[in-house]
């Protein structure tokens, strides 16, 4: 079973960067890391490949400036190989362009199963996996909180507003997994060393048969018109607890007449 996992490399969420007022894009000049949301997809893939016995795990990522640190982390966790799509033409890509490029890169490996996080920790549009499925003409199950593969069928517990649905989906398919679906492993020292020699392909958009003018800024279908500071909440009072905090809270609630 061939599994492809989509991974996003993002700025460290502890240092989210800023919006460039000119280009209205995220300024990310620092080194990118593996989005924690994607570590669940990588772990899920590794476990499914193990359970299958003859499984392989290939990573696909799109990132600016040939950044590969996040891919190396996922390779160190145990993935077999990776493809990075990096191209000046991709700057400013929206979800639709991103999904198109990722789908084209994924299609090259003819996978049985494509895994992705439900949403990234920085852009969180939550639409890219389902868009990729549409480009790939594959069925999809999003928001998976558990995934098993039984023969040629993915059996997924799909989160719903009220609880979850059991969904059966024939392969090949795209499945997006929620955080917490599995416990991601930490890369071992051996894993980190071997990651350095694992195959890592680097492609541009024309390698994927995509016209550079149809993606990124040039192919964009949406435009940011303006950016403004949101009205902020007035700061309240902060107290050190000296054993009487509960009384302050009760008084606060009594004032609001909610008790």
């Amino acid at each position: 079973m061939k599994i492809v996992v989509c991974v996003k490399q993002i700025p460290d969420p502890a240092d989210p960067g800023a919006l460039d007022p000119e280009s209205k894009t995220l300024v990310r000049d620092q080194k990118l890391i593996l989005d924690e949301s994607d570590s669940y997809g990588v772990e899920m893939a590794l476990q499914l490949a193990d359970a299958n016995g003859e499984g392989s795990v290939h990573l696909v990522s799109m990132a600016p400036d040939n950044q590969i640190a996040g891919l190396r982390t996922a390779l160190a966790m145990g993935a077999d190989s990776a493809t990075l799509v990096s191209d000046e033409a991709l700057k400013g890509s929206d979800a639709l362009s991103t999904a198109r490029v990722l789908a084209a890169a994924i299609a090259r490996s003819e996978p049985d199963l494509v895994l992705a996080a439900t949403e990234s920790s920085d852009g969180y549009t939550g639409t890219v996996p389902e868009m990729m499925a549409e480009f790939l003409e594959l069925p999809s199950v999003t928001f998976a909180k558990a995934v098993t593969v039984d023969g040629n069928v993915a059996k997924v517990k799909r989160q719903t507003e009220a609880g979850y649905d059991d969904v059966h989906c024939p392969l090949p398919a795209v499945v997006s997994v929620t955080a917490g679906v599995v416990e991601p492993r930490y890369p071992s020292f051996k894993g980190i060393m071997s990651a350095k020699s694992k195959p890592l392909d680097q492609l541009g958009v024309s390698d994927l048969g995509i016209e550079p003018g149809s993606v990124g800024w040039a192919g964009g279908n949406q435009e940011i018109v303006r950016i403004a500071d949101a009205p902020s909440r007035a700061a309240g009072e902060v107290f050190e607890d000296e054993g009487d905090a509960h009384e302050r809270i009760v008084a606060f609630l009594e004032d609001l007449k909610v008790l």
Partner: protein
Amino acid sequence: MGLDKIWVFAETDGAAVATISLEMLAKAREIAGTVEVFMGCDGEDYATELGDHGAEAVYCTGDLDGALQGVSVASAVANAIQRGDVDAPDAFMLGTTQNGRDVAARLSVKLQSPVITNIVDLVLDGDDLLGSEPIFGGTTDVMTKNISDNPGIFLVRPKSFTAQAVGAAEAMLEDLEVGDLGAVGAARIIDTFAEESQGPKLDEANIVVSGGRGLGAKEAYAMIEELAGSLGAAPGASRAIVDAGWVPYSYQVGQTGKVVKPTVYIACGISGATQHLVGMKGSKHIIAINSDSEAPIFAVADLGIVGDVHKVVPKLIETLSD
């Protein structure tokens, strides 16, 4: 000025129309002359309520027999437009729900329309419809418009607008034909499970008491439920402890969970990551208890207590029970 026509994706909550769908209808009425609804189920039982909230027509796929809404509804809508059975609307509005996001994403590819996500407000700017998205934990608003030749798709966050009935007549029912989708539509729902929590519903409660990683251990969440119980509140949680498996996803407040706007929100042992703030900073009053005085949660709290939740919360429960 205004748009001619908006299509709102309606979802259901048992026998009723989902609140998010009614909220969007209220906004759609403000900005468009004609508001119509599309849904991935049999619409007959919902036509009265949808009409009462301003929908003139309801386009329904009929029962999907276990097929997923995303691929089914998007295919049916795109086919109807491309065949010329219906006139394309100027914009689509869908809720930021599991099915809403699936339908929007598939529709986006089929129509080559952008999806403008995480929208909390829609504003008319001449002939343009702008979606407003809060970023950086809600400190900055980004206004985005569709520049394609196709209808824009807006994914709207729950609780962005207030639902309001207008007393209009029952909406007219129209068919949306899904047709045979082949392999791409082959996923099937085999069974459905509900995770019930005690007390009022999280997104409807007047008071919400949430716990986070500061509780230290899964067992400590019991005191959050006890405090919630003594206040008639709904218990909630940060993403961190949902991911850790302490409580089910249905408890989660935040970007990827529920958006709540109660009269009082009590955050216990929650540091206030962007992910969480986005889901609760619309609360009328916020109380935060956290041991770290630098925690971002204190920037939005009306009453902040720098202290140990394990000391403060039990005393609070005891005082309230007297």
